[in-house]
């Protein structure tokens, strides 16, 4: 495709900037609303004059709910889940990529099938099972059912298929165990995919609502999405507090994204474009 002429170019940028503005406006509004008090809420659409900026909403938020505790809960659950998923999924992906063994085809087919069946089908019996295992209202009940990510296994298989065979053979000749090959060769080489997967898994767990909502009852165990949902019910008038809570809740994911964005964007599309 050729270069655009100046008029078309200006139009192109205009459309892109407009689309970009539409995308960012709600987020800017979120930041603005969390920084102004209830009088300015109606007086100014976005930011109030500089001298009227306030952190009152955040103070009120911390007064109304144990926000730090909730943040730590969410971080703990998401961190644990990501680590466990990362280990099991990459290990499984390694086996599927580098070995021929009986039952491999069956596993691949089963993986594809589970990606097609919506998880909600299992919701009711899974809840029953978790209750019978006495894992309801515990973090184990939150983490264990999702300890292996099928999607992650697929991602790691795809990336580990590209490992040169000579590298693994050389390791074997040097007396490296099979687990050693995974740990010392496959894992270090897959660093970009690990970055991508960590972010995807973290986002998935950090934002997950339905399953925690079903199995968590104790307030001390609540994660951010659950607690924020309750805050919506309690605080219909105090919009600034809600905005402050929402803003703080999305910051960790945004931060992790900024660290991992290169790996993430390439890892995200790798499965679709090459697979």
């Amino acid at each position, binding site marked *: 495709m050729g270069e655009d002429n100046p008029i078309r170019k200006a139009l192109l940028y205009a459309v892109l900037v407009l689309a970009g503005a539409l*995308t960012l406006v*709600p987020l800017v509004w979120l930041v603005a609303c969390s920084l102004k008090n209830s009088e300015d809420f109606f007086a100014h659409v976005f930011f109030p004059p500089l001298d009227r900026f306030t952190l009152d909403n955040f103070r009120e938020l911390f007064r109304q709910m144990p926000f730090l505790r909730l943040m730590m809960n969410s971080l703990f659950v998401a961190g644990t889940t990501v680590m466990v998923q990362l280990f099991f999924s990459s290990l499984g992906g390694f086996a599927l990529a580098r070995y021929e063994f009986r039952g491999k085809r069956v596993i691949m087919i089963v993986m594809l099938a589970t990606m097609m069946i919506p998880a909600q089908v299992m*919701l*009711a019996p899974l*809840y029953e099972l978790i209750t019978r295992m006495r894992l309801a209202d515990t973090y184990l009940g939150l983490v264990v059912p999702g300890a292996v990510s099928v999607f992650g296994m697929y991602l790691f298989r795809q990336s580990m298929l590209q490992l040169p065979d000579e590298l693994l053979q050389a390791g074997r000749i040097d007396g490296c165990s099979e687990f050693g090959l995974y740990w010392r060769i496959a894992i270090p080489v897959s660093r970009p995919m690990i970055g991508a997967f960590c972010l995807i898994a973290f986002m998935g767990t950090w934002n997950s609502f339905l399953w925690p909502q079903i199995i968590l009852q104790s307030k001390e165990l609540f994660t951010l999405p659950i607690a*924020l949902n309750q805050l919506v019910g309690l605080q219909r008038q105090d919009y600034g507090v809600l*905005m402050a809570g929402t803003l703080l809740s999305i910051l960790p994911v945004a931060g992790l994204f900024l660290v991992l964005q290169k790996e993430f*964007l390439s890892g995200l599309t790798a499965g679709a474009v090459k697979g």
Partner: protein
Amino acid sequence: MSKTAGSLFAFQQRHAPYLFVAPFIVLFCTFGLYPLVKSVVLSFYITSGPKSQVFVGLENFLFLLADPDFGKACLNTAVFAACSVFLQLPLSLGLALLLNRKGLRGRNLFRLCFFSPRLVGMVFVGVLFSLVFAMRFGLLNVALHALFGTSLELDWLGEARYVMPALVLTSLWMYVGFNMIYFLAALQNVDETLYEAATVDGANAWQQFWHVTLPGIKPVAVFVVVLSTIGSFQLFELPYLMLQNSRGPDGAGLTVVMYLYENGFVTGDLGYASAIGWTLALGVLIMAIGQMYLGRTWKKEV
């Protein structure tokens, strides 16, 4: 190396792949396969709480077919899915085409910006947009009022006819940029020489798009269509949060998964919930297979 160490080494070499996939197999059988089978069984029972279960055969499914609430949930979900595929994806593709123009500056910045809503989880989007759509001070009403002088009292989430447009607008905000990433990656993979050849053959921009671009990105396009459809069928958090844990006015925000949740975990009939789940799975399966089939036959025409 001693003899036992040698045989140990041979042992781990022979069985390594099985050990590596063992965690997946154990967890999958316990928390995947078992619940899956159990949900088939459960769907033949009426349950209330863990103790009372009555076998009713196919009655759950028959009841489901005649259940007006379920009909409403299906309709809402289908409308939402249709909007995702026919409204959101063309916009994603259009944006990707724009971003793929030669000599564009700031491509990565634009991409980052369009992608940013995806970083906000569905739940948090729900909270944020319940305020965007609020009366009087809500961002949308304020903007519409400033631009077109409409009323500030438009009750987006309180009037049945506005609920679905509000949900669709929100999902556009969330996903147009996200799906654009896939399209953009696909566009960048289309063989450049094909465009040159088409230009030599005198193909205009539209013909180029139809005969070079679309076939070139088809695998990704099918992938994105299937993924968006599956995602739309599972819609729950967004309306649930935006409508403050309710179905919305006249059930305008009731989705299939929300109905499943209500029946299974509010009313406590896990049997009926399982029947809803399997009906949903069937719908997803039919849609996905249909779309992939269409994708395959369409290639042959081109």
